[in-house]
């Protein structure tokens, strides 16, 4: 009974979320937040990948901004300089970034825990420096990247782009949810629990880790490509190692092992960064630091998951009280 109720509730929440998402750009008072919502959508895509890797599989990556950056730059260079169709550029970027993650995945996942964290961080530093030095435009980045279009319909206003980004974002969320609930998802959780135990029941631990790493890289690459074709201007600063850390903050707030929590995490951080603390100097990173420490000390399962748990407990108590009377 409770399980069925829970299932219904999930669909209700998702439907409400969809309705809310659709209505935002049409509402004149919320419409001003369309650009903010675009960023929330992009960061959600990157964060979901990290949630699969960090929350479900237990593998830390401090370099997700790397793939966000390679996606954006490959897309930008191909479409602007080589004149490739933006959609094709986006596809090539995703494939190339996925291949890059695959090639470095096998050696890097021979490392665990602390060393894996540092290795991914180091990789992020290397790619960031290369983008600054060798990327077109250097530290200033490149402008004039073509917009995406379908036939004659060009995504040239934030109103149009909003729907494009959230289409991709929801697709990524649904794919991730299916993965989590599949055989693969159970394998990932087994790896999180104990690698030795997972291996002993026939799970190819290394292969699953690399697969999820590649998937997270492809998500980040798609988000990066969308960013490049949205803003038509990108610079290396958007993909610095600090951005990788901010993505970890989003995952931590979202509740590491929760696909839908990623929206919550991305939204919280984006609203803090672009709305509440805009113009307040470095206060945003002070708050990120506090969030990281407090959440990991007091609710290591993540803020969103913890809140959901508390809500579930409250509902259960409510239901019991109802049954008694």
């Amino acid at each position, binding site marked *: 009974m409770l399980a069925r109720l829970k299932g219904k509730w999930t669909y209700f929440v998702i439907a409400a979320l969809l309705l809310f998402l659709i209505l935002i750009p049409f509402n004149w008072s919320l419409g001003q937040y369309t650009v903010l919502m675009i960023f929330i959508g992009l960061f959600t895509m990157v964060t979901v990948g990290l949630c699969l890797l960090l929350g479900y599989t237990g593998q830390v990556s401090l370099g997700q901004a790397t793939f966000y950056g390679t996606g954006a730059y490959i897309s930008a260079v191909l479409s602007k300089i080589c004149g490739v169709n933006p959609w094709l550029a986006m596809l090539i970027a995703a494939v190339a970034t996925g291949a890059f993650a695959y090639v470095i995945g096998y050696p890097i996942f021979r490392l665990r825990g602390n060393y894996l964290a540092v290795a991914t961080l180091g990789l992020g530093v290397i790619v960031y420096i290369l983008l600054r030095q060798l990327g077109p435009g250097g530290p200033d980045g490149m402008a004039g990247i073509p917009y995406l279009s379908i036939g004659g319909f060009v995504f040239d206003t934030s109103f149009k782009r909003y729907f494009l980004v959230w289409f991709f974002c929801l697709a990524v969320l649904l794919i991730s949810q299916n993965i989590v609930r599949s055989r693969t998802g159970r394998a990932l959780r087994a790896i999180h629990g104990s690698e030795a135990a997972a291996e002993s029941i026939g799970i190819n631990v290394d292969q699953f880790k690399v697969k999820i790493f590649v998937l997270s890289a492809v998500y980040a690459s798609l988000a990066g490509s969308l960013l490049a074709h949205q803003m038509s201007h990108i610079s290396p600063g958007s993909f610095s190692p600090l951005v990788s*850390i901010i993505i970890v903050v989003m995952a931590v707030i979202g509740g590491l092992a929760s696909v839908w929590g990623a929206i919550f995490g991305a939204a919280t951080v984006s609203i803090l960064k672009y709305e509440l603390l805009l113009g307040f100097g470095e206060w945003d990173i002070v708050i990120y630091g506090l969030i*990281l420490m407090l959440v*990991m000390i007091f609710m290591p399962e993540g803020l969103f998951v913890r809140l959901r748990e508390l809500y579930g407990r409250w509902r259960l108590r409510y239901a019991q009280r109802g049954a008694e009377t």
Partner: protein
Amino acid sequence: MSADQFLQYLISGLTIGSIYALVGLGFTIIYAVTRIINFAQGEFVMLGGMLSFYLISAAGIPLGPALILSVLIAAAIGAIMYLLAIRTARKASVVSLIIITIGAAVFIRGIVGVGWGVDAVRPPYFTGYKSISFLGAYIHPQDLWIIGTTLVVVVLLHLFLSYTMVGKALKACAISPVAAGMVGINPRAMALIAFALAAAIGGIGGVVMAPSIGIDFNDGFKLGLMGFVAASIGGFKSPIATVIGGLTLGIVVSLAVGVDWGPFTSAYKDAIAMTVLLLILLIRSGRLAAEERES
């Protein structure tokens, strides 16, 4: 590259390598005693440098006492970080601890950025600014201070670990916390000492380097990564190995940047260090995996 140039790069490599070594020592001490990689280690270097500047220029404290005070404050912040953030997170997983120390790093960086602004500062040189000529190369007095301080720190640290009761207790804890507990050593007290000591050594690094190249609130991150590379070249084992690791890294980076490779300008310094790091980690990955399983 002529012999003079080579010597010049060697000297600058030793100087910058000394700083990496001091940061690396902090990583090594904390890792040995607690098996935690403290991602906030670089922030203590930044704190040391910033504190010394503000104590000297804003508070008007004379150089000597200001330097000592900076190091003590850094050590106190290290101890507070352990008590508030690490000790409260009991039974935290490795991943949780990584995120907690990153949180501490970002927090410290943010507080400094808010409080003192984002501009680089540069405290005065300890003694003079006239470079000394040495076998056709030039060496700055502050560089001598940096190299000298590092040597003194590592010798003192070695003596402390080998000949004092607390030092031996730290070593015992590094070998086996359980066995150390059985002979009456409190592993938590040792962890507290390790964090304070590591922060103090980081602070010393910041204090000696800041006059030479200046420091801003953002520098902790990069310095921390470099220190980590130094410590991993040394294998997180002994202080001496870490110092050798730091000096090697400094010289490699300095020579690599010095060689005229066309597009390879000094901007690639960090990229070279990170490549060294990745190579070391991957070469040693088998052994490192075994180590992680053990702990």
